[in-house]
Each structure stands twice: as structure tokens, then as C-alpha cells.
């Protein structure tokens, strides 16, 4: 980086101090609300009413407690919600990567007159919003009898993930030299074989990016699943957590514990994959 080591003037040092202070302020602003949430999840609702900013136990007669977590875990039906979220996210991610790379390979390496039209329709899909398909999708899912089923959630999720997958996949596979495909063709390999043994292994880096984008998008999706499901057995974590904002809104202790449970999986995922996530965000932003 541009560290000018020998420049040790007062100006530089003041500049550095200001930089640290500014960054420090932004960091505190970014994470203070989350820390506040975590701290308060260990207070009972009664203690929270008396003590909204301090640590648990700073009011006479109260102490740190896990009771909120126990209650929220049971009332929120978290085991089934987490299982559903895992199913939706895993299946959507695997299928989107597979289908979009299959299509991308065909668009990039197999000549066909239909390519401009089909590929173009996927590109338009990048600009479409969920709002414009929400009501029709709700009606269609009802007509085919998939309302409040896992399949009725998964099919829309896969379709919505396709444009980004096709976009990233086609760009990447185009950069793989044609000679690789051609020489395999001369050796008599079928296209499906080429996809399986040459393209798929080579596409791993962009598959990671796509996986990151699909996982974060699917896990946190709320708007669609909110209208496509009605029972806890089918809902995902975000829709399930939302219950704590309604009927249980004034039971702050439970609500905070539920929110912490709701954010832990994604937080863990982020801390493990933060390098890949930041790369994925930057890559996903090139669409436009």
C-alpha cells in the first residue's frame, strides 16, 4: 500500500489520528445496535423496562439470564424454521449453479441460432423486480396447488436466481479458450461429456461467487416467502422471526433472543466466508 514510511511529519500523524477516529466512529455506529441487541437478550423484559442501556444485572435484583433463549427457541419453533431455511438455501444454490452453468456453456460454446433471443431474455431478467412478478406468482402458485408447499417456494427461488447465474456463468465460460472444447470434440467427446469433465471443474471460482450471492440472497429473502406460505412448518427463518414483531412485540426479552437466534447463522457464515462474500458483492455489482 501507499505507506510513506520516511514521512513522519506532524501533519501525517494528525491525518492518521483523524483517519482512525473517523473509522472508529463508523465502526461503532455499525455494530453498536447489534451489541445492544445481544446485551439486552440476556435481560428479562421487566429488567429491560428499567434498564435499557446498561449491562444485565446493573439494576438491583436482576442478573444475566438465558431464560429468553429457552422460551424463544420453543415458541418460535426455531428447529423447523432453521431446517426449512437450510433446505431452501441449499437446494436453490445447487440447482441455480447447475442449471445456469449448463445454459451458460451452451450459450458460450455451442452454436445455435436461438442463443441471442434466449440469452437476451435472461439479461432482461437482471432488470426485473420481484414486485412486478409478486402478484402473478402468488396467483399461479395457488392455481397449480403449490401454495404453502416447499416446492412452491423452491421453484420461484430457482427461477429468480437464474439471470445472475447465466450472466456470471456466460461471461466466465466465454473466457475459457475455444481450443479446449474443440480438441475434446476432435477426440470424439460429446458436449455433455465436455461440460462434465472440462467446463464444470474449471468454473469453480465463479461458482463460488455465484454460490455466495445465492446463499445470502435466498437465506434472507422475505417478501416472496411471506406471501407464498402460511404455516410454520413451511416458513423460513426470516418469516418465522417476524412473528416476534407482531403478537409478541412487547415481550422484549423473548423478541431480542429470537432476533439473536435469527442472525447467528448468517453472522457465522459471514465471518467464515467474509473474503469470498466481499469479492462476490463486488462481482455482483457489475451488472447494470
Amino acid at each position: 500500500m501507499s505507506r510513506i514510511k520516511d514521512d513522519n511529519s506532524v501533519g501525517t500523524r494528525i491525518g492518521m489520528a483523524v483517519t482512525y477516529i473517523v473509522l472508529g466512529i463508523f465502526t461503532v455506529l455499525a455494530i453498536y445496535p447489534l451489541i445492544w441487541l445481544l446485551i439486552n437478550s440476556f435481560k428479562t423484559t421487566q429488567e429491560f423496562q428499567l434498564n435499557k442501556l446498561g449491562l444485565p444485572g446493573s439494576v438491583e435484583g436482576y442478573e444475566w439470564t438465558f431464560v429468553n433463549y429457552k422460551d424463544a427457541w420453543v415458541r418460535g419453533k426455531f428447529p423447523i424454521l432453521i431446517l426449512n431455511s437450510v433446505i431452501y438455501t441449499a437446494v436453490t444454490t445447487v440447482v441455480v449453479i447447475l442449471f445456469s452453468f449448463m445454459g451458460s456453456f451452451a450459450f458460450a460454446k455451442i452454436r445455435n441460432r436461438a442463443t441471442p433471443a434466449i440469452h437476451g431474455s435472461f439479461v432482461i431478467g437482471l432488470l426485473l423486480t420481484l414486485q412486478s412478478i409478486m402478484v402473478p406468482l402468488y396467483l399461479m402458485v395457488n392455481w397449480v396447488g403449490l401454495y404453502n408447499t416447499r416446492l412452491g417456494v423452491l421453484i420461484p427461488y430457482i427461477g429468480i436466481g437464474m439471470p445472475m447465474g447465466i450472466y456470471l456463468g456466460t461471461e466466465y465460460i466465454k473466457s475459457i479458450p475455444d481450443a479446449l472444447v474443440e480438441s475434446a470434440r476432435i477426440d470424439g467427446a460429446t458436449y455433455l461429456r465436455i461440460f462434465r469433465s472440462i467446463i464444470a471443474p474449471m468454473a469453480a471460482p465463479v461458482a463460488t461467487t455465484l454460490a455466495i450471492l445465492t446463499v445470502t440472497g435466498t437465506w434472507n429473502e422475505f417478501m416472496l416467502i411471506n406471501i407464498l406460505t402460511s404455516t410454520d412448518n413451511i416458513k423460513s427463518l426470516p418469516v418465522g422471526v417476524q412473528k416476534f414483531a407482531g403478537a409478541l412485540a412487547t415481550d422484549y426479552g423473548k423478541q431480542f433472543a429470537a432476533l439473536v437466534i435469527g442472525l447467528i447463522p448468517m453472522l457465522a457464515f459471514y465471518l467464515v466466508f467474509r473474503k469470498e462474500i466481499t469479492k462476490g458483492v463486488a462481482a455482483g455489482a457489475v451488472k447494470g
Partner: protein
Amino acid sequence: MSIFSKKKLGAAGEELALATQLKTGGGATARKEQIVSYWLLVLPGFLIYVAVMAFPTVFSIFLSLSDYKGGKLFGGPNPVKLVGFGYYSKMFHDEYFYLALKNNLYIVLVSVFGQIPLGFFMAYILFRGMVRGRDFFQTMIYLPCVISTVVIGILWKAFFAPTGAFTDLVRIFNPTYEAGLSSHPMIKVLFVILWMYTGTYLIIFLANLQKIDVSVIEAAKIDGASEIQALRYIILPALSGVIVTSAILAISGSLKSFDLIYVMTAGGPANRTSVLSLYMYDKAFRGAPNYPMANAISTVMVIISFLLIGLTKLVERKFGGRE
């Protein structure tokens, strides 16, 4: 951009097919295998995409021009009829439409003139500043973006509630503060939006700043350029494309905003924090469904989004283009 890439795609494919045909002797079986594999590879994803996105988009426009009231589309007791633009004109005469539109525009403004400059500023000091622990700062500031919007919304709702911590926090500075109905309820929503998404732009700008060759900046500095001049003549021009992309991202993201406001305020009090997507949601899913109206709203949203993106591109062509 898409047209260009399609052309390239076509040309490459043609060349390839020619080469393969020449070398494999152009057998009819190879040609047939090529067509069959093409469709085997393309169709699974394309069919789902058509069913879930392409068709519903067209269907939505159809619904917005119809009098559909639910139930069977054809053959039911009230078969659906096309009625033209009646619901559009009804929408344009509804004061709540303008209230929601105004709030959406506030969000667009906060995103474009708040998140982007702030994100750029932070990315810039992380890039240029001699700061240790850049990774740490980046990780922390981006953290709110990865958490489910629903969790964020409920968290801030509790924080800003009249009995919440916000009141106590303000009382530290102003002991006489009383939480009442705010005269500008949108301000809190806008604050949370700014808080939540600025990290995204930090990430985007930092990733692209790191592509700039630092030695160019160093050389300019040795030649006597100030930090401001380096920013003005080297860094900003190199980033003009990214800034436009970010603006497009911010605009389309702002028009889509739903989750956060849905859980934080549900549009209240008295629809004063409503946005277009919430207005649409209310028409379709709260009370008696008004599907044509809801689809008229979503169609107008798509048009507004395309117009704003077109405008951004136009501004870019006029003032930018120094990539």
C-alpha cells in the same frame, strides 16, 4: 453492453461450429448431437425462468389492464375482461400513491447522495490512509448488510419504540425529551437505510480502488500533486464507471425497498412511511384484494426504475466517460 456481448457470442459460436464440423468431418450425427445437447443444457433453467419471471412479468401487465377479481381466470362466474387503463387513472388520482412515491424518492436521494458518497469516503480512507486493520474495519462496517432485513427492522423498531432505548439515549443529552408522534417519521427509516447499506458501497469502491496502480499516484505525488489533485485527476476518473453502476444499483434497490419498512413501520403511522411496494402489497394482500390496481402499481414501478436508470446513463454520457 448486452448487444455487444451477444454479437461476440454469436461469432465465437459460429467459428467453433465451423471448426468442429471441418475437423469431425461434419457428420450428421455430430450435428444432431450438437442440437440435442444444446437444448438439454439450456431448457431446464430456461423453462423455470420463463415460468417464474418472464411469463409473470407479461401476465402482470395483462392483469393491470383487466378487471380480475380472483378465482378462475376463464370459465368462472366472472370471466376476466380487459378494461384498459382505468386502474392506472384511479391510481394517479390516489393521494396515497403520491405519498408512497415521495417516500421512495427520499430513499433514492439518501441512497445516491448518502450511501454512495459515504461509502466512497470510507473506502478512500481505507485505501489511501496508512491504516492498520483495514480488514477489520471493512468486516465490521459491512456487517449490517449480511443480516436479514427482517431482523434489522425489528431491532430498530424496538430501539426507536417510545419505550425503547432511543428515548433513554436522547434523555442523556436532553432530560426533558418526551417520545411522541414524530413529525417526520420517515427520518428514522431513512437513517436505518443509510446505516444498513453504506457498507455495500464501501465494499464495491474498495474492490475497485484496489485495481488502481498505486505507483501512478505515487509518481504524481513526487511530481508535486496534492492529495486532492490525485483524487480529482487519477482516482475519480478511474472510478467513474463504478460510480454510475453504484448509482444504478442504489436507484433500483431503493425502489424495491420493502422488507425493512414492512417490519419496521408497516407504512404507518397513517401511511406516512409507505413506499410503492408496500402500497402495492396493501392493494393485493390486505383487505379485499384489488389485483388489477396492484399490478398497475408494479408496472409503474418498473417504468420509473427504467426511466431513472436511463437518466443516470444519460448523465454519465454527458459528464463521465473518461474511463
